[in-house]
């Protein structure tokens, strides 16, 4: 398969099949995801976008009855091989969920949660991480005077940026976003899209979106899924302006989904 951009491949998915019990949710998925770019997964609801995203940080491991065939390599290492430690993997592959899910703790403690898990307890070091993470998520100016306040005192959009900052605090290489804006108002959505644009210089971002226009606006390459299969994968501009598969064209022109 061709590499789409000049960026190097970071994630290589090879003939991946995933089963939920007897249900075949991902079928022969092969993809190369380049580093330091935004890759969008689009497709109708239930086509397996979230499932594929969760294989990248092995959150599927926790769903009983899940079985996987084929491989996923990140920087050349098979993440399903025995010598990959799932906690280390998840530290390197951060995730932001559909609903903002801050802990019922202070803003500070939300950000410090991850670093503390991995053994950082020095107050000065934590202060530093909290500030840089919040700055990266463009939330610092809004909350710097209220770090002790409950994360629940923030608006939905702020909470989602807090969750992004929380994910960044453990210093990941990859950021997975599963419809991270679908619960937000248009202005908050825009802010997160802008944020993703800024972050892609430093992180590899994979985002699932139910919204084609969002994929078109922010991503560098787009993968179109249907019924657990990759139908088409191309540079975003090309996929939206000149799709090769009829089903892609039908989908992006709004004929179904």
């Amino acid at each position: 398969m061709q590499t789409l951009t000049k960026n190097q491949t970071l994630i290589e998915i090879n003939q991946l099949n995933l089963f939920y019990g007897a249900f075949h949710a991902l079928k022969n998925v092969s993809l190369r995801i380049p580093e330091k770019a935004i890759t969008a997964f689009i497709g109708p609801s239930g086509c397996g976008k979230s499932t594929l995203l969760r294989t990248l940080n092995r959150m599927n491991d926790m769903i009983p009855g899940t079985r996987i065939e084929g491989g996923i390599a990140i920087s050349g290492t098979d993440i399903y091989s025995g010598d990959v430690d799932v906690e280390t993997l998840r530290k390197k592959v951060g995730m932001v969920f559909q609903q903002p899910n801050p802990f019922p703790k202070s803003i500070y403690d939300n950000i410090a949660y991850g670093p503390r898990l991995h053994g950082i307890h020095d107050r000065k070091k934590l202060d530093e991480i909290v500030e840089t993470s919040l700055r990266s998520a463009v939330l610092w100016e809004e909350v710097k005077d209220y770090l002790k306040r409950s994360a629940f005192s923030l608006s939905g959009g702020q909470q989602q940026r807090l969750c992004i900052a929380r994910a960044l605090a453990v210093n990941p290489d990859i950021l997975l976003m599963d419809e991270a804006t679908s619960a937000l108002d248009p202005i908050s959505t825009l802010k997160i899209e802008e944020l993703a644009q800024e972050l892609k210089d430093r992180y590899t971002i994979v985002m699932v979106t139910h919204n084609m226009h969002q994929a078109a606006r922010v991503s560098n390459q787009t993968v179109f899924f249907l019924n657990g299969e990759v139908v088409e994968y191309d540079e975003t501009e090309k996929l939206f302006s000149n799709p090769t598969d009829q089903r892609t064209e039908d989908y992006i022109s709004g004929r179904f989904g």
Partner: protein
Amino acid sequence: MNNIFVDANRKQIAGRRRIDFTLRLLFLIATSIGVIALMALLIDIISDGISMLRPELFNNFPSRRASEAGMKSAIVGSLYMLLIMAPLSFLLGVGAAIYLEEYAKKNRITRMIQLNISTLAGVPSIVYGILGLTLFVRELHLGRSLLAGAFTMTLLVLPIIIVSAQEAIRAVPKSRRDASYALGATKWQTVSRSVLPSSISGILTGVILAMSRAIGETAPLVMIGALTFVAFLPTGPMDSFTVMPIQIYNWVSRPQASFQALAASGIIVLLVMLLLMNLSAILLRNKYNKHM
């Protein structure tokens, strides 16, 4: 043009209103019966016991003369009992709840354990008394000691604590666990740093309510041989002991009116203690609701 509001069947509406009113009245009466009975009981006890609610009640040991009798040993006995029972049942109960909710595979064995625990919560307390007598008093040679009593009561409240702690743990949204795992937390880190902090007030509420049930229990302790007349304070966990409800029972069973009054004053003390415990449970629950 027809007005839709005029169109409706007035007779039918009037009938529905009547039913509504009657039912409301019936429910009110049902509630009132409970409340009134409780109030009557309270007033009766307070008027009986208020005269005996004096410093001697707390400072004196039981005595053959009602005027000198107090329940110091019973109050201290109950408190000591709590002191052993509360941490023990908290650790065991919460440990079991964490295991069942977070670690146990959801298979047939787990379901059977779960069913058993729920059933145990409904077993009459006297049965726990018999178990305690056999297991702790005789087999483990603890004798009729405070420790044997506390262990027996711990068994009695464990199912209640486990079930309520499980409910509190289950109420923690999955998304909060996901957030923790996605940051690279292990299972225990997730449980200890995310799940427990989110459920601790719910868990404590259950523990306190279970404790307040245990404080009022008499039967199992009579069974394992708590004394009814204790004129000393237990100095260690192996000493014999009495508790408030047993002391009250002892006083009630005497014919003299003055002992009846003494019993009523004992009941007031017990009720105040239960009330305080339930109040703290309510306060905790409110705090918990605010955080969810």
